[in-house]
């Protein structure tokens, strides 16, 4: 299986996203330049983390108009899997692939730390190798990760099982301090209505080996491999 990782000017998580399928799955990765119009046969597209276009205007607002986003959007509309991580999540929201928006962290601080997540839906193509309600640890690194949407959208996301990951208290944290950015309803990751686009602020590609501090992101890539290759 081939993973296509889009590099925008200002992406900085593209190398991690490129390595994860190779190192963790022994699968193929290819870089996709944002100005190209070719997904190079990628089965899965990853929109990586970083600061595309310097976060000018709003994070993701300008990257969504990069030429390759036309192909990424067409791929998503065909049901092709898209994994949108951190800045990628912001881009996916701006592009209308996912509902809502990511706003400045409530604390106004950039937060870079391992964080506890609860797997809310283990029946997606991205999470089938997790257990429902499983607690995992995955790093975050963002200043604009506060998921926001209107109440109607939030209710629909919850009702349709589109909330995939939620920030959750772990053993070490006080119950009120586990949400690192003030996201509405503690939302850390959501899938599209059709389930083929996952947006998440945490970085699963930075948690695929115990030497990185956690291997809890590995199951996400294994889920994709299992479900998409099938």
């Amino acid at each position: 299986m081939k993973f296509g990782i889009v590099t925008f000017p200002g992406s900085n998580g593209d190398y991690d996203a490129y390595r994860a399928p190779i190192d963790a799955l022994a699968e193929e990765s290819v870089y996709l330049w944002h100005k190209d119009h070719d997904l190079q046969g990628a089965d899965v597209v990853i929109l990586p983390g970083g600061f595309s276009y310097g976060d000018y205007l709003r994070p993701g607002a300008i990257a969504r108009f990069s030429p390759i986003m036309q192909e990424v959007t067409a791929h998503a509309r065909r049901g092709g899997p898209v994994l949108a991580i951190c800045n990628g999540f912001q881009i996916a929201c701006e592009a209308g692939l996912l509902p809502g928006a990511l706003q400045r962290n409530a604390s106004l601080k950039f937060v870079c730390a391992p964080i506890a997540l609860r797997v809310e839906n283990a029946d997606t193509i991205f999470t089938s190798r997790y257990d429902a309600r499983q607690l995992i640890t995955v790093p975050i690194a963002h200043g604009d990760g506060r998921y926001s949407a209107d109440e109607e959208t939030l209710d629909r996301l919850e009702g349709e099982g589109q909330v995939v990951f939620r920030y959750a208290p772990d053993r070490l944290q006080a119950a009120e301090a586990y949400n690192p950015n003030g996201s509405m309803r503690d939302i850390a990751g959501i899938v599209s209505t059709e389930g083929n686009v996952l947006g998440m602020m945490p970085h699963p590609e930075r948690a695929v080996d115990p030497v990185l501090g956690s291997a809890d992101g590995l199951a996400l890539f294994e889920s994709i491999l299992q479900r998409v290759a099938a």
Partner: protein
Amino acid sequence: MSRFKVAVQVVPRRGLLDPQGKAVADALHTLGFGGVSSVHVGRHLVLDVDASSEADARKLTRQMCERLLANPVTEDFEIATVAPA
């Protein structure tokens, strides 16, 4: 075609949490400006727009706001001025 100078204000939607505005308000209070009850921090954009009329310039700017300059989920925009450049 004429050229118009257009000013647009984009502000966080009222009612949504605006931590940046709150931080500025807190700092103003610290400086002794206790009469400030709320602050909202947004963006002020100035554009030179070629259009057939002032109404056309306003219409084009509105489209720009809806498609790029403001996020429809979290922000409101106001076209403050449209004047011959």
